[in-house]
């Protein structure tokens, strides 16, 4: 009867109800989103999710669940105090937001703030397959991934990156190894997988990414949580302009007069206090034995100051990196750094039948990773969630 395999995996709770705290009060400067951020970022064993308006019978508020143990209101209070104290401490170290924080800190004493929040708390039992349960799982998983595995993808809450070496270590059988096309790719293009010292190896690295999201579903009035599981290949770039100039000088042995010609028109991102800006390289001059790079901003309005000059050593300070989105940058990369920098795209020029064979292996790897992260079973509040080992059929 079922004929479609979909990249969804069952997530099964061992109990129908999940015990949560719901913070219903908002305070000046501390709306639902900010409280959620503080809890998820700075608490030790709490996870939270905001709900801005009533949804599926759930009232608005910040839903908080304990992780790995069952918590009571006193523990919640202690955890929140610790989290807000750490939050203020981190913020006070950031000079750019100092003024705002001073106003926070003087207005809010941590004890007063947390007591006000906890006073509004209701202890509730929500469905363990509800919308907020799915979001709590997302937030918990997101913060449980060790930093070295983390990647960032718009719209995808959880992203895990695996280089070819880690992938090889995680695969246990020949059958799994033979299904993974990245191994062949790396044999053909070793530079793109970190082998050697050519332009590809110096500036690029192709990795596998696993994208995960817990999705709430309601069909025929029955609520369920699925894990959407997707994998793809991505080329990571490390195109610091300083390293690129070094490479052109020392490895390609390009004469200084030619460096300006090959870099002119290349577009770079420059980290400025007001945010990252897109610039175009106009000139590279040698002044008193040091390279001076002249840039023109193209993400500012014409009436704004658009010119920027910086010495070679200043490139680090402004974290100047080539932006490979633009044609001029891509042509430069193709001609001088790595001819094969787009080859990874071909790895997914396959049919769904072939893709799901790879994805089945990826799911096994993901489950092994979860075991490494001590997440084989996810204990959220009083409920243990188990992630399935196969894709569902519809």
């Amino acid at each position: 009867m079922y004929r479609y395999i979909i990249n969804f995996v069952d997530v099964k709770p061992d109990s129908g109800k999940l015990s949560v705290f719901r913070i219903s009060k908002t305070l000046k400067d501390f709306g639902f989103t900010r409280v959620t951020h503080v809890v998820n970022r700075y608490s030790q064993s709490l996870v939270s999710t905001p709900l801005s308006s009533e949804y599926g019978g759930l009232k608005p508020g910040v839903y908080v669940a304990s992780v790995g143990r069952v918590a009571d209101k006193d523990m919640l209070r202690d955890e929140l105090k610790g989290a807000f104290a750490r939050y203020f401490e981190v913020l006070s170290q950031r000079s750019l937001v100092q003024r705002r924080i001073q106003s926070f800190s003087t207005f809010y004493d941590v004890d007063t703030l947390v007591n006000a929040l906890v006073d509004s708390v209701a202890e509730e039992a929500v469905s363990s397959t509800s919308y907020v349960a799915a979001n709590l799982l997302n937030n918990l998983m997101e913060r449980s991934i060790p930093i070295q595995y983390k990647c960032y993808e718009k719209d995808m809450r959880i992203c895990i990156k695996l280089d070819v070496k880690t992938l090889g270590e995680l695969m246990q059988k020949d059958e799994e190894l033979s299904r993974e096309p990245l191994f062949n790719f790396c044999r053909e293009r070793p530079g793109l997988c970190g082998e050697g010292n050519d332009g590809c190896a110096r500036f690029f690295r192709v990795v596998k990414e696993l994208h995960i999201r817990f999705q709430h579903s309601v069909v025929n009035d029955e609520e369920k949580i699925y894990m959407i599981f997707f994998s793809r290949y991505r080329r990571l770039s490390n195109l610091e302009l300083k390293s690129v100039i070094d490479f052109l000088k020392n490895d390609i042995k390009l004469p200084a007069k030619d460096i300006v010609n090959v870099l002119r028109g290349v577009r770079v991102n420059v980290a400025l206090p007001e945010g990252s800006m897109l610039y175009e390289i106009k000139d590279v001059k040698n002044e008193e034995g040091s390279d001076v790079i002249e840039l023109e901003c193209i993400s500012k309005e014409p009436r704004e100051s658009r010119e920027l000059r910086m010495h070679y050593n200043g490139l680090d300070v402004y974290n100047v990196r080539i932006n490979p989105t633009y044609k001029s940058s891509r042509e430069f990369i193709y001609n001088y750094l790595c001819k094969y920098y787009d080859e990874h795209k071909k790895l997914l020029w396959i049919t769904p039948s072939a893709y799901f064979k790879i994805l089945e292996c990826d799911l096994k790897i993901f489950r092994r990773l979860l075991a490494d992260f001590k997440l084989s079973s996810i204990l959220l509040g009083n409920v243990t969630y188990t992630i399935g080992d196969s894709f569902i059929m519809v």
Partner: protein
Amino acid sequence: MSMFFGYYDIRSFPLRFGGGGIGLSAYEIIRYGPLAYEPLHGASYLYSVDRFKSLLILYKGGDDEVQRLVNEKLKKHLSEGLENKKIFPGFNAVFKLNIEMLAVPFESYEPGEIFSAFQEHCSDVYTCFPLIVLPRVARGDYDSIYYRTKATFLNKGVASQVFTVDLLKDEQNYKWSLLPTAIQIFAKMCGVPYTLERGVLGEKVPENVAVFIMGLGISYHPLLRRRGVGYLVVFDQAGAWYFMDSTALLLGKDENISEKVARLLTRSINSILSYTNKRDSVLVIHYSGKEIGRAEEEAIANAIKSAEKELNKFLAVYILKIRGSDIIVCDTQSMYMIDKAQSGYPPIGLTLQLKPDLYLMFTSGYFETQSSVRSSIRGNIRRGLSRARIISRHKEMEPARDGLRLSDRELLATVFGMCRLNYSSVQNPVAREPITVRYSREIAWLSLRLSELGTNLDEDIRIKKVMWFI
């Protein structure tokens, strides 16, 4: 429990051509001719194919090979057709017109010079159509000669068609590009090549009720990060074009973008209602969530809320958000074989339901042209993944009206139906995205360029009634 919701079969969404001709493939235009020579809504001589006397093929002089290819291939084939008339019988033969084809060189790839060359050979620019031969550029390059030239022409009220030098030299793809190019030119001349055979909502909507399907979105400026554009396009329920409109936005804290989008929406609703004499009207908004952040998404939601008074003029308003996803399926019984192997691609139109208001629609995969005949299986994808479009109905944004109760199944048909109207790729019977959200980048980028050239998009300018963005 199953998420399976149903299929939208392309056989239930045939196309209507000239002379009452009906067919599944856009190629049928060769047999039947175009549906109309002026817009089906708001027609006038100003917006009629009849006003065109010539098609000027503008190319860069001084390159012998390009000159030869333009004269011996492009101009010849547009005039006389290919040897195989089934692939392309010529522009005038397809559209039953008598338009003169001229090849005109220009000096350099400078938009101003290209327009001057056009103007020199055409005393009234509204009677000539420019087909401009340009080098191929990356679609993501805002500063490219492609966008700069298109904007320069558009700024003078002239829609144009670009044909790349690379395509001219490409033996394999060139011949297949001629009919789609001709169809796009005809649509930009304000003709109607084809529409859906009937309205996607069909008999669910009474005779005396007009249906408008609107695409609404916000896009960022690709370079100047504080600038953006709000835009909308409007079609009837058979996919016939009404108009587009847009407004320049200043993103960030300097401007209330909700207010500006609400003004855009309000003035468009007033225009929409002026198009119909029917007693009541229904509005379906396809709102594109791609490329934008949460602030802009909220701005759209707030704009819809602010325009409630105007929206209350409709019998009913429905709001669907359409976006991409990383959700894929493998059809274990797929009838679509590639290199003699089971591909796993799903049937086009497969729709799953995740929640009462949340659906997944697959628009890439395979389709049947005849019933139950294995040899008639065709696909619109041969490699890569067929990712679902996520379609969510936002009832909380819909003004509370209970004049006409359309089901989600019917509303999803508006999305699928608008995917059928793909004037730029004749071979593909179903585009990945509906026409209501598909051209967001072209509309946004060219609107931004127009405002940079001094055109005030808030005014009632001529190009709003021309489908220049396809």
